[in-house]
Structure formats: structure tokens, C-alpha cells
């Protein structure tokens, strides 16, 4: 996980300006905003619209189309579990039921302590060694419930991570 910055209009404007020159710059800008702030803040929408000579509605439509973009930051950690066929063939469905049960969340849900948001993903390209997952930026293959538990523990414990 990253430490996200609090929304700051000047910083937001810098990010927008820095990329506005690209052809069709919407996605690069939205990615950059989300990388900085953990989401695409509502106040950034008019900024993006203005920089790209688009309407605010168009930017809103764009943000809501793509599953990656959020209007609010996710939990500290995002666990993406692959639900696609290759992982299903390797027993992903049972794993997912177990993981969701253990964490006590539905798909897209965040754990009670606000620590983890679980999201489905359709294919990480790790299809030969399923089930696969992605914990924040870290890909995982041949995932087991025990392995996930350990990884989640390690995430918040630098000693374990090291």
C-alpha cells in the first residue's frame, strides 16, 4: 500500500497540468491522481475537465466506467482475487469462499477494521499456477488460504515482511 496524500488543489493541478499535453490524457491523469490521493477526488473532476477541454459530465462518465477508479480511497490494503476460468479450474471458487468467510466481507467489501478491501479481478495472467491474487502491488500465485493469511499478516508487520 501507499501512503496517500490528502487532497490539495495545487498539487492536484500540478498533476493534471503535467499530463494534460498527452493525446487523450484522461486515463493517465486519473491514474496519476489516484496514485497520489488514493482516489479521484470529487474536486479534481472540474480540474481534469478544464485541462482537457471536456465537460465535467464526460469526466464523471469516464471515471465511473473503469473499475480501477475510485471516488473514495480504498482500505489500507486491497486484495484482488482472480475469479477467471483458469483460476476456477485450480479451485479458486472454494478458496474465495473461505477467504471471504474468514475476512467477513462480500466482494468489494472492506473488513470491519478498515484494513482490507477485497475485490474480484478477472485474470492476472498467472493462469498456469492458479489460484492467483494481488495484494496491493504484489502478485501471488498458487494461492492458498494459509498463504494468504500469512501474506496479510506480513503486510502490516515489517518484521515479518523483512
Amino acid at each position, binding site marked *: 500500500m501507499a501512503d496517500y496524500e490528502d487532497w490539495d488543489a495545487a498539487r492536484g493541478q500540478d498533476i493534471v497540468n503535467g499530463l494534460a499535453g498527452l493525446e487523450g490524457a484522461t486515463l493517465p491523469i486519473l491514474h496519476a491522481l489516484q496514485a497520489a490521493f488514493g482516489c479521484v477526488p470529487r474536486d479534481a473532476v472540474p480540474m481534469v475537465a478544464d485541462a482537457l477541454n*471536456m465537460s465535467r459530465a464526460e469526466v*464523471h462518465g469516464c471515471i465511473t*466506467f473503469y473499475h480501477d477508479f475510485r471516488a473514495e480511497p480504498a482500505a489500507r490494503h486491497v486484495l484482488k482475487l482472480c475469479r477467471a476460468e483458469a483460476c476456477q479450474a485450480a479451485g479458486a471458487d472454494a478458496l474465495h469462499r473461505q477467504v471471504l468467510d474468514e475476512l467477513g466481507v462480500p466482494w468489494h467489501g472492506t473488513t470491519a477494521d478498515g484494513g482490507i478491501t477485497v475485490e474480484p479481478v478477472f485474470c492476472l495472467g498467472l493462469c498456469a499456477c492458479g489460484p492467483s491474487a494481488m495484494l496491493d502491488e504484489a502478485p501471488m500465485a498458487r494461492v492458498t488460504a494459509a498463504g494468504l493469511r500469512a501474506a496479510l499478516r506480513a503486510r502490516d508487520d515489517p518484521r515479518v515482511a523483512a
Partner: protein
Amino acid sequence: MSLIKELDYGTPIRVSEQTVTLTIDGQSVSVPLGTSVMAAALHAGTQIPKLCATDSLEPFGSCRLCLVEIEGRRGTPASCTTPAENGMVVHTQNDRLAKLRRGVMELYISDHPLDCLTCAANGDCELQDMAGAVGLREVRYGYGGDNHIHSAKDESNPYFTYDASKCIVCNRCVRACEEVQGTFALTIAGRGFESRVAPGNTDFFGSECVSCGACVQACPTATLTEKTVIDHGQPEHSTVTTCAYCGVGCSFKAEMQGNRVVRMTPYKHGGANAGHSCVKGRFAYGYATHKDRITKPMVRAKITDPWREVSWQEALEHAASEFHRLQAAFGVDSIGGITSSRCTNEEAYLVQKLVRAGFGNNNVDTCARVCHSPTGYGLKVTFGTSAGTQDFASVDQADVIMVIGANPTDAHPVFASRMKRRLRAGAKLIVVDPRHIDLVRSPHIKAQHHLPLRPGTNVAVLNAMAHVIVTEGLVAEDYVRARCDLAEFESWARFAADPRHAPEAVEAQTGVPAAEIRGAARLYATGGNAAIYYGLGVTEHSQGSTTVMAMANLAMATGNIGREGVGINPLRGQNNVQGSCDMGSFPHELPGYRHVSDDATREMFDAVWGSKLRPEPGLRINNMLDEAVEGRFRGIYIQGEDIAQSDPNTHHVIAALEAMECVVVQDLFLNETAKYAHIFLPGSSFLEKDGTFTNAERRINLVRQVMPPMAGLADWETTMALSNALGYRMNYTHPSEIMDEIAALTPTFAGVSFKRLAEVGSVQWPCNDAAPLGTPVMHVDRFVRGTGKFMITEYVATEERTGPRFPLLLTTGRILSQYNVGAQTLRTENIKWHPQDVLEIHPFDAESRGIVEGDLVMLASRSGEIALAAHLSERVQPGVVYTTFHHAKSGTNVITTEFSDWATNCPEYKVTAVQVRPTNRLADWQEQFADNEVALKRIAPRAAAAA
């Protein structure tokens, strides 16, 4: 009478010299290249089912109802997105296609409320029609699946409701907002099954939506529906008429239940609007039946008396006797009249006829005096005709568009949409305006050059452009040699080449960077078809006429007159300001712009009118007011104009009105001028009469009566009755007879008649034997005056100067939701968008005066002062402030001065030196206004009136 339903070809009409021939369901049909299979099928008489396709929008291909089979092609392509090709063999109906279409409808209906009988669109729903067309008999999915039935309604827009539960995600509204209106206020939020139309992350009222109604018009279901239709149900008959707002002259269908307007919908075959509309014409018609309407004639002895309701006869006889008395006592020239640019051509014609033949003088003027009189003057001098050169469609061929002193997206929105469409298609844009108007930069529109000049320096900027064109060898020499007076050209070219006009030399004066002027001039001269569109930011200056001539010079020098895509195009303010001028409303001109001193013309009129017309010009409005203050001008007949609010220097106007003995006001409402009137004649709205309006492109459109006059008489009948009371006989039974008289007396109107207009929809004058269907583009082979005349246009700074006491320049204008003095729009829900006039001030100027957003500030000029709320905005440059004049209580014209155009006396509304300071009270004038609202508008109770 029945409801008018236009045929929908599904995809836009294509124009091509090439045709393709194909076979559809066994029938051969030839269509222009680029026509879709869907539209070709309709040409062949076959209507292919469709939902996402409509001919105002580019094909989209989403609903999948219009699938067809084409021999030799795989699958079932959508007929809307498939262009017709030579030799194609298309089948639009067979069992396979029928099954597919039923399958699509089954899916639609599985996610749609089953409330047809109680739905506002019942009877006017394409989804319903299509269910019928495909023979949908059951929805095997049932209705228990995932759906949107419980989606919330958005009722924030005052005029229409968005009911997401009924949305079929055809995107027609989104596309209409983009393609037709050009605002891009709508999108689809989410994706897949969750896709829903959304005005961004907000509701409709809080969004970028300008409420033009294009989305409502495009919606095939009840998702976007007029609230009036929800309230009253479907209309049962409709009549095509013409909007009474701006000079675009949109055609509308007044859709009625009996005498009630259920809704106004833009008419697809409207020559000016081609099916588009704006928030005013589309929705803001409620004023016409507003409770403030005065429907009884009234008189009073003095303005402090309460009004007394009287019979028409009493009112008219009283007016006639007063006018007789004044002329007897103070001379024939002591009275005059003002025609209305909101009334019909026929009505304006009658008023000027009444003045000239009935009053026996030429003291007639019209509100064009205060808006586009310089256009008439400047274009007549240079080209020979007092009107714009092009039709609106011409903009589709423009490569470079120069907008000077106009804000079309606010003031001429329907034309602006057309212009923006052309800009999105690649035309280049130059904006010359002190303000950062929307056209400078708004979604998908960006001006190549914005010349943010200092108000009052139009001529200097245009001369600098001329300098660049002349000195950089950009003159279209062949054109000039062939079409223009060469000697005049050469002296102009010498003038323009003088170094004092170089962009660098005028940079300090105009505030425009020299490089921008050079860039703009080069683009204008070399970018292909270049067209100039302008508004009151050109005319309402002490050099208004000079500016018009300077633009004409540029157009001639670069060969940009006389074909599609070019020209000098005034965007005229009021619905019939072109027409009122055409009809002889100016004191020096008879109908058709013929000078009163022309003996032959006068003799012709005298013969028909039985008059003895005067050969000298009469008084202009401002002269009338001046002479009134002097005591020489004593009475006036004002039809549908509110000079006490709209004319400059309110103090002076009121002083003049107060000095008169008989002020007759004919209007829908007790307006500002009526506060100073002695006789009030109730007017009739555009819905209550027949007639014609002439728009900014010289297009004569029919106005058709849809309800009886609320006061019993239409305006033309009132003028006729007044004339008869005065003893000058008029006897018309229908406005068409008036037009017949106009046509008989006016060569440019010779071919115009109501019959012709009803047949062809509209014509653009000149319309006569030489051009029986009218003249979209003027000066094609030669200028009307023969050769084009270049004029030397020296820049003369206005006498209105800033200084230590008044360091800022005020410029005024209007906004989208409101119209002129607000008499109409403020009596509609449009007031929600503009509850008050505000003063736009640059944050820099605000900061140095300790002003923050929303502060009440005192705006003071040499003429007076008013208090307004401040709005900090970077749309104005430092040193310039801006406000609107829609609310009478603001008193914007208390501030403006009496300076005016040298040639026409068009007031210099656009330049007033002012100071702005924080205040905590209203101005004295505004306090007085509040008092007068009561004191000068009292109407005696009916019993008292009878007594």
C-alpha cells in the same frame, strides 16, 4: 387540426452529388452517397424498427432493433450504421430478423416499468411503438430479475423530469447534448447493466445543463419529459409558429390542448433552427399567460393617479383626442411613435404607417436604434443593404469564424450550437471580446485567437488587422479588382498601411498583444472561407457604425463576401428587429430602406396610403426624449418597448417621459415605461396573433395564432383601431392583407405572401420575381450597391474616459436564461437561473477594493449609481466590470451614459467609466424604484373605476 409529427429517417440526411442504387425488400431505390440503409429503406417506403437512431443524430448502433440481412454479407448488420452501397440487396423483414427484434424488445421490457397507462409518454413513446411493431407478446424473462424500476427521479430542472427507471440507455439524450447542443452536460455513468444517464456527479439543475431541451426532444420514452406533459397529458393538436425571443427565429410547434399550450417543441423543418431550441423558446413561454398580464385598457390623468380600467373605445378615443390636442397646441411634430421589434412585421408596418400617414410626421423609431442601427447604416454604405449577408446554414461551410462583440452561446444559443458543431468539425475560431466568453474555451471548443481588447477599441483592432492584411500582401486582389470600387480601395489601403495602425502601434491602446492581432489577421485572410459574426459589442459604441464598416472592409479585402461560408453576419437581438427595420421603423426610411426624401417612393406610398408624406427625416428616440425635456415633444405611442428600462441614462429617459402629456403604452405588462404612461393598451403575445417575424438571416417566418387574444384585440387590431379613432382609416381583416400591401410597395418583399410562406415554410428577402424563393446569400455576383465601397475608418476614442474617479470600464450584456429587460423570462421559471443581476469583477480589482464574493457593491458612473452583488470572475479582465440588465430593480441603465454612435445614435452601452466600492445600502434610485413599484402601478378597484 391534428398533431404534427415529422418523419424520422433515423440517420441524418446526406447530401451528395453521387447517388447509389440498391434493392431493399425487392424494391430498387436510389439515394445520395453516404445515406444509411435505414434511411434508404424509408425512401423506399419501409420503416425499419429503431430506437437509438433518430435523424438529428449520427448513427450509433446500440439498440440492435434495426438489424437487416444483406446478401453476401455475414451476420445481421445494423441498418443505421451501414451505408447504402451500389448493388446491395437488403432484406428488412423475415422470420429470423423478426425473432431477433422480438428478442431485443423482450430484453428492454424486462427492465422497464409496466405502467404504460399511467405513463406521461403514453401515446408518444417509441418503446411502446416498437413493442407493437415487433409483435412482442410476452417477456419470458419475467419481471423479477435485476432491474432499475426503483431508480430515483431527478426533478431538479424546473421544466423537465428525469426518470431513470424508464431509461433504455439509447444515449440519444447524451448524443443530443453533444452533437446538437454542444454542451456535453450528459454522460452515461457506470457501465454494462448499471449504465445510467447522468448529468455528471450531480443533479440536472446543478450540472452543466443549459436546459435547451434537446435531450427531452431526443428521448424516445418518458425518461426525460416536460413537466407540463406530466401535469396535463399529451397534446391533441399543434400549430407551427415562430419563437418570440431572440433574432434566431426558431420555428416551434405549439402543442396544444384546446387553447392551452402543453409544450413548445422545436420544429424539424424550421429554416433557422432545424429542430433545435434553447431554454427560452422551448420552455419559457409561461409569461404569455402569466397573472401579471393586463387585459383591460386603462387610462389615468396623471401618473400618480391609479389606473382606471376602461373600454377599448374609451381608451382609444381618449388617446386620439389627446394626440389631436397636442398636435393642435404644439405642432404636428410634437408627437411620435415607437414600433416594437417583438411584434410582427405587419404590426410594425402599421405603427409606422400610423405615424407617417396618421400623425403626419416621420417621428417613428424602433428599438433597433439602441441595438443594431449601426449595422443597417454600415452595411448599407459599404454593400448597399441594411442586413446580414448570409443564412445560418452558411456557417457549415466556414473555415474561419471570427466572433466580435457577441456572445452567441448566451444570446443566440441555437445558432451558437450550429456554430460550435462547425468548430468541432475543424473550423478555426477568432474571438474578439473583452470578456472570456464561453466560446473562447468550453468543452471541445477552443479559440485559436482571443483578442481581449479594451472596451471601445474595436476600430483600432480591426484597423490593425487591416494593416496586417494590406502590408503582408494578403489582399484578395482579383476579388477587389472585380467587385469593388478600386479608387476607394486604394485610398483605404493607403490608410490601412499607415504605420500608426500597426498592431504593435495600437497594442497599448487596445490591450491586445500585437502577435495575437497579426495571427488573427493572417488566419482570417488565409484560412479559407472566413465569416464574421457579431453582436451588440460591435454596434453599441460611439464608433458602432465605423466598426461595422471596418468589418466590411476586411471582408471585401479578403474576398469573403458573396458565397456560402463567408460574410458579415449580425446576430440580431430581438425576434423581429430585422423586420421592424425592414418595415420602415426608422425616421428617415420608408419600408424597404428607402429614404423619405425620395420623391418617387413617397408618391407610390401616398397613392396607396392616401397620404401626403413628409420628405424630411423625423426624430430618433433619443431626439424625441431630448425634445421632450425641452418641451417640444409632448406625446408618444409606444408599442411593445420599455424604454424606461432598456434605454441608456434612465434619469434622462424618465425626465423625458415625465415631461410628456400623453404617453400611450401598449404592452403585455405594466412595464417600467408604463409607470410614466397615461393610457395603457393591453398587448397580445405571439401566441395570440397571425403575422410574420424576420430573423437575423432575413428569413421571414410565419407566426400563427394558437389562442385568442387575452384582451380581445391583437396588436395590429389595436393600432388599426387607434388609427381609425384618429381619423386615419385602416381596414384590414387579416395580417395577410397587410403583408400584401407591404409586398406591393416594397420591391424586396414583392414575392412575399402568407400563402407563399405557408407553402415553402419561410423565405429570405429579397424575395421577388428575380428570386421567388428568396435569397440565402447576398451580393453573390455583385454588390447590391454595384461595387463594394471601402470606407476609411479612423479610430476615434470614445469621449467616455476612465480617470481617477471612474477608473473601471463597465460593459453590459445578457445571459442565456434571460431575455432583454426580463419582462418575459423573469415571469417564468427561468428566474431560477438568474435571481438577480450581479456585477462581474476581476479578483484583482475586487481585492484592491476589499470586495469579496457576494458583497453588495455600489457601482457609480457619471450618470448615476446602483448597488449590486459582486461576483468575482476571471471572465472579465482587470479594469473591466460587467453586468446584465435583466432585472428592472437593478437599474443598470441608471449607470450608462448618453454617449452614442456618431452615425445612428445607437447608445454606447458597452463602455461606461465606473467606480466600484463596497456598500451596505441600495442606491437612492433603487429605493425610489421600490416606492414607484407601488405608487406608479396602482390599479383602481373595478368598483371605483366604474364610479
